[in-house]
């Protein structure tokens, strides 16, 4: 399963997309994200399953590909 990683450095900042991880389950995805994206002491880090992303721009395939996110 693919997960997109969003973080903020300080409370009040916008959440920003910083990358993605692929994992067999949520618990492992969280571990991979913490280990892989450890360059900052993040105030918030959240994951979103890529399949749960909802496309807003009309007239295109509903599916969101990883390359579109960076």
């Amino acid at each position, binding site marked *: 399963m693919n997960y997109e990683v969003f973080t903020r450095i300080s409370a009040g900042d916008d959440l920003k997309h910083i990358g993605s*991880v*692929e*994992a*067999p*389950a949520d*618990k*492992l*995805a*969280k*571990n*991979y*994200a*913490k*280990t*892989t994206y450890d360059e900052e002491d993040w105030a918030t880090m959240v994951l979103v399953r890529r399949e749960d992303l909802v496309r807003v721009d009309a007239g295109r395939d509903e599916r969101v590909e990883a390359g579109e996110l960076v």
Partner: protein
Amino acid sequence: MSDDWSPEAVDFVQSLADTKLMLSHWYADQAFLGPNMGDNIALFSMTQDEYGQVRQFYLQLDRQGRDEDWLRSERDTGNFYNAATTDGPAADWTEFEVKFGLTDRAALLLLDAIDHEDFTGLTDKMAEEEYSHTDFHDGWLEQLAAANPAAFQAALEDSLDDVLAFIGPAAYDEDTDPLYASGFTDRSVAELRDAFLDYLAGIVEGTDVDVPDTTEVPLESWNEERRRVAAGSIEPDVLETIRGSKNTEFAAE
């Protein structure tokens, strides 16, 4: 720095150090072979954590008269007190997670039970590092127990008695455990074994895996220094790798 460690305490800390050394070795050995890139990143990180902890333990042991050079590069395989589960590599990913993940958890329980002034702050820092290890292993153990119960069960039956022997004999309760009696640890082996088995029951809960019946280890069969019942040791080629024997000519004097 105190000099009041009992001989049993020195052996206990060497066993923790040697087990962590071997975990570090097998994590490094597997670090390009994880199922996902995230696993490899975690394995490299855990390799470094364990090796750093080994260094700290060796410094402590040296101060207790167990020479650091001997620990590092001068002893033979029979003088390594690592858990029997860490003598050799795992055959596959499920076995890797079961025997090394559970050994890592057991080592954390032992580490966390140390209650001696020489470890003030040190064991807290180590336990902090170990959080990412247990997070990683628990994620995989839960996943594999659910998805691959037969292989998990087989690996567990192969490893559990050796992990429990590393924790120690069940006969060591608050009245008989020499480390508890001397105040070096704040929990007896019997309590640590129960804590480990409770943890394991939680890992396999809701899956088709059962915690096997455990074999009571007779005290007279248990090797206090090497914290095991089984014979065996690391292989000579592994010894050469972890000693750094090939590059001694470049070592600092």
